């Protein structure tokens, strides 16, 4: 569904990505793993069109989107949920969600989907008229995810959904991502929480210094000693038992 070929990109003259190759097939969950400053967020911004592609090509849903404008990419069904947990704090929860549906004009269906989001994240329903600046970290993550879903995406890209959240909340967030993928939405999830992301995904890429270092099936990578070494002293947390529970 998403095909990235030899992509180089960065900020101004500063090149961060040096030839990224990555594929996401339809209906799967793919994880992109790596530490801070390895180029994960840069790659997402490049795919979304916020940063220009210097070299290489990006293809989504059989169309080339290498030079497309960000708002056109959203309209084609590829939606990014940002990392910084940026909801619009001065807007209410409902306004944020409606903003997610900005590209749509089917009013009745938007309303139906809004109720769908509320039943999926009941916490948001109770707070629908509150300013999103007053929400907790976990609730904001639900909000930005829900906002992404309001665009009716074919594919969702999540940028570190577990960052700065309590382990129990992280578990809930990952369970939600799994449920979303069950509804047929293709998912690319960027994470630092390696073990959780590997348990969730079917295929994974590990990025370092703007290059893909390792890639493979998640179930194989999870027991790979090279991975453990790669992230030694990093952010590996053993939450496998909790997830099975």
């Amino acid at each position, binding site marked *: 569904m998403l095909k990235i070929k030899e992509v180089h990109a960065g900020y101004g003259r500063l090149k961060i990505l040096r030839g990224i190759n990555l594929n996401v097939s339809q209906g799967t969950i793919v994880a992109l793993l790596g530490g801070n400053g390895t180029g994960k967020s840069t790659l997402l911004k490049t795919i979304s069109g*916020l940063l220009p592609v210097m070299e290489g090509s990006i293809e989504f849903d059989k169309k080339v989107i290498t030079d497309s404008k960000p*708002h056109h990419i959203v309209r084609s069904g590829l939606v990014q949920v*940002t990392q910084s947990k940026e909801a619009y704090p001065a*807007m209410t929860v409902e*306004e944020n969600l409606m903003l997610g549906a900005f590209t749509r004009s089917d009013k009745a269906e938007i309303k139906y989907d809004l109720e769908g989001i509320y039943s999926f994240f009941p916490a948001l329903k109770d707070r629908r008229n509150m300013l999103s600046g007053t929400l907790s970290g976990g609730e904001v993550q639900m909000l930005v995810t829900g*906002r992404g879903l309001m665009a009716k995406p074919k594919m969702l890209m999540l940028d570190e959904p577990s960052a700065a959240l309590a382990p129990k909340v992280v578990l809930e967030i990952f369970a939600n991502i799994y449920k979303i993928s069950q509804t047929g939405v293709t998912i690319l999830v960027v994470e630092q929480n390696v073990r959780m992301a590997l348990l969730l995904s079917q295929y994974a890429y590990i990025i370092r210094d703007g290059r893909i270092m390792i890639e493979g099936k998640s179930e194989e990578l999870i027991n790979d000693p090279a991975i453990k070494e790669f992230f030694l002293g990093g952010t590996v947390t053993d939450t496998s038992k909790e997830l099975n529970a």
Partner: protein
Amino acid sequence: MTMDFDFNSLLAFIIFGITIGVVYGIVALGISLIYSGLDIVHFAHGEIYMFGAFIGLFLSQELGVPYPFAIIGAMIFAALLGMGIERVFYRRLTQAGGGYTVAGMGMIICGFGMSVALMNVAFLIWGAGAEPFPVNLGMPLQLGDISIPQSYVLTAVVSMLLMVVLNYFIRRTKLGLAVRAVAHNKDIAYLMGINVPLVISLIFGLGCALAAAAGVLIGPMQSVQVEMGYLMLMKAFAAAVVGGFGSLPGALIGGILVGIFENLGAAYISPSHKDIYAFLLLILVLIFRPSGLFGVIAKVKA
């Protein structure tokens, strides 16, 4: 203007202050709106206001368009002019990175340049003299012992109407939601599928239309001349800062405060220094409440 205290004349000064103040308010509103959308202070805004006044004068005196429609016509013209300026000049600079960067400095200089250019164009078209803007609106309105000219009443009504419509647009419509989204964070607005450059253009046009409305409203009270924009920019700027930069209700309240302060100063201290009082208020607010009366926390704009 007697110096012995007279409650009726005090009331009259306050009413006139409020009327002129709401006009400062709508110009300040435009400046605030553009500031929240583009992260720049638009220094050519006074000239847009002046252009609006001249277009309104032209429409109503030369073409015989009824006054209310002259306001609408001037607003449409100014919106198109503003969007044209944004498209041709400012967009190149916003794309190089807006507000606080070096390009932001470029935008300020570009604004000043635009101000000089527009003033000279106006000079070539209309000359340097002050043009009267006679509008016959009928007998002054009697409010007890105070008589208020109809132009003041109309100004207050139209300004309030503009505020209400703008507020409805920003708070209740889908496009208004997009305007707020762009004002707060452009990258996320893009990720919502919003055509950000188009919305910025719209914000710019809207701000300019408000300035033009102010110009046509002020016309009958004073007169229309090429240099009228400069002082209005300064006062509207003072109003925006007094109210809290980037806050839309703040811009209106700031404008009214500046208007009242100015009128009372002129009445009770010295009329020849009328234009100082706005800045006196500005200085006082900056000393005691630097973020303005409705100062919003940075990042929570519009």
